[in-house]
């Protein structure tokens, strides 16, 4: 009898199991470990307490991103605690011989932007980082997931983590995307359908024609937000698009090595008879530009649509949950968001700060002016994205439209630095979380695509980008 086919996920996971504990987790070997200043200091302190050194320093790469200013990065960080965190990272990397792309380095940037753009992220790898959006790297056909600081310490000490093998889900998007619909809309749509907890316990493979046709940047946006439906990670089978992206990247294999690697990677996609624990199929045709109205990423609707009627929600606890969200956001049940006044726009974060995202924004705002009331943070994902945006004239287009391109970092996605949305203000944001106060205490976040965010910045109110495109 022919053995049962394996999924992409199984193939990679099984290759990386050092040992399985009876009735317990697997010891999973990690190929690449990314660290940053916020979730690593306690891990290094733990190593010191145990008198243990970093086991494989060449398999960890560091950058400073979560807590850095996005203006005047050449000056010392003003805020003492932030400065200390960044200095501690620098010190730890020096002590343990870990490569650091710190502030001022031409490779510095958001950890999930620089991994792929440097060719560090490759198909078939296992990758972890003390950040839930590590799922981003799954776009290359790798197993990538976020971990806590104790687990960061495990990887530093042993290059392994103890993990239970999750279940497998496949989400297929058939067909072709509508005009004005981009990958952010796909993922917001998926989460709105299966809820903010629908993926918990699973690793999700995204498949189907609409996914195949996406660029690497767009695939990263989808995998990035897998965690927002509770899934530990998402992944997409590597293909010609993946290989073309990797070609010529700094740390990607080159020449003959690349050919060999591609031959091996080509065996990774899920076998035809592979079985998933759960499957969903959606039609691209049903997806329109999306926006969230509530305080978890599952609360999404079409930009042109209406908020749910609280009284029509059957489940009592969900009713309560939506009611509480609407009260926080200051929206009325059954109302419309289109045309609602907004004073802030944030374009950035590990979800949407890559060159393609900035190109999308430039395309919408070119030859137009931002609305008077709008304050915008446009924050590139990395020094390389920043340089490319300048080289392509994107910064000039933004400037002419009344915007400014800031310096790379996580910025107003989580508002650890000084980039905060003031209390009570609405912000249409290309980031990944609309939790209460996520962008600053009392801030009200509406998640959307770069196209929708750019259109909103031009109109000064929530806008359907398709109406600007038609003009």
């Amino acid at each position, binding site marked *: 009898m022919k053995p049962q086919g394996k999924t992409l996920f199984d193939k990679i996971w099984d290759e990386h199991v*050092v*040992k399985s*504990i009876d*009735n*317990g*987790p697997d*010891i999973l*070997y990690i190929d690449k470990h990314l660290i940053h200043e*916020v*979730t690593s*200091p*306690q891990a290094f*302190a*733990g190593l010191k307490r*145990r008198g*243990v050194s970093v*086991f494989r320093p060449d398999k960890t790469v560091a950058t400073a991103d*979560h*807590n850095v200013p996005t203006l005047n990065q050449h000056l010392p960080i003003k805020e003492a*605690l*932030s400065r*200390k*965190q960044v200095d501690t990272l620098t010190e730890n990397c020096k002590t343990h011989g870990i490569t650091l792309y710190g502030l001022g380095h031409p490779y510095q940037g958001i950890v999930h932007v620089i991994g792929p753009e440097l060719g560090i992220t490759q198909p078939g790898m296992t990758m972890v980082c*003390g*950040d*839930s959006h590590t799922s981003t790297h799954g776009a290359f056909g790798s197993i990538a997931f976020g*971990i*806590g*600081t*104790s*687990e960061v310490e*495990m990887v530093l*000490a*042993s*290059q*392994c983590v*103890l993990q*239970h093998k999750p279940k497998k889900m496949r989400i297929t998007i058939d067909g072709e995307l509508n005009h004005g619909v981009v990958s952010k809309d796909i993922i917001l749509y998926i989460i709105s359908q299966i809820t903010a*907890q629908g993926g*918990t*316990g699973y690793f999700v493979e995204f498949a189907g024609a609409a996914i195949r046709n996406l660029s690497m940047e767009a695939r990263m946006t989808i995998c990035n937000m897998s*965690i927002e439906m*509770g899934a*530990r990670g998402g992944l997409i089978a590597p293909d010609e698009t993946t290989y073309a992206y990797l070609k010529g990247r700094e740390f990607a294999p080159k020449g003959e090595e690349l050919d060999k690697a591609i031959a091996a990677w080509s065996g990774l996609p899920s076998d035809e008879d592979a079985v998933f624990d759960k499957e969903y199929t959606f039609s691209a045709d049903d997806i329109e530009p999306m926006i969230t109205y509530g*305080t*978890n990423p599952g609360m999404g609707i079409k930009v042109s649509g209406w908020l749910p009627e609280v009284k029509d929600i059957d489940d009592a*606890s*969900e009713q*309560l*949950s939506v009611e*509480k969200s609407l009260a926080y956001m200051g929206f009325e049940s059954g109302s419309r968001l289109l045309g609602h006044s907004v004073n802030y726009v944030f374009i950035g974060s590990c979800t949407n700060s890559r060159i393609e995202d900035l190109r999308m924004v430039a395309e919408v705002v070119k030859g137009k002016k931002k609305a008077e009331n709008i304050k915008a943070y446009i924050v590139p994902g990395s020094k390389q994205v920043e340089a490319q945006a300048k080289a392509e004239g994107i910064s000039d287009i933004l400037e002419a439209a009344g915007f400014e391109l800031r310096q790379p970092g996580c910025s107003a996605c*989580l*508002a*650890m630095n000084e980039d905060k949305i003031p209390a009570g203000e609405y912000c249409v944001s290309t980031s990944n*979380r609309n*939790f*209460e*106060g*996520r962008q600053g*205490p009392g801030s009200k976040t509406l998640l959307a695509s770069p196209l929708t965010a750019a259109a909103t910045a031009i109109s000064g109110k929530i806008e359907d980008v398709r109406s600007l495109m038609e003009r």
Partner: protein
Amino acid sequence: MKKFEKTISHFVPLPIEHVDTDQIIPARFLKATTREGFGENLFRDWRYDKSGDEIESFVLNKKGVKGEILVAGKNFGCGSSREHAAWAIVDYGFKVVVSSFFADIFKNNALNNGLLVVAVDEGFLEQIFTSDSQLIIDLETQNITIKGSGESRQFSINPYKKECLLNGYDDIDYLLNNREAIEAFESK
């Protein structure tokens, strides 16, 4: 890590769903480089107003509500992977969190810090919320009991993690003891 002992205590009810780790500990309080002191800012923006005064209606500020057990609505701990959320809950003095559903990363982080997470069915969660009783959490027998009514449920926990919690072992010790196997794997 401390050994987990049988816990008999009143509970703090937080009947809210999707409590994300940004609510448990907002990002602006993640700037510390040590693990201690996060309890002070546990549920910061629900607990204190803009000027730093206690918000009376929030459960942690209510007189007479005390306990080593936090009971919350489903999908507790979703969002950011920040272990600071587990540190804050432990630092505040909780030993157990009960909910009908936990987010994956939070669950790992909690267990790695000796904080027991107990998942119960929605019906039982409702019974807890409506009871005004102590809860008994026995990890050895994997039982959670509402002391007043005597109603109880079995809860599941991985046998490996149970061992770790009962004995105060941590995963890093385990991995360090497996370095040989890891080196052998590397040279394959």
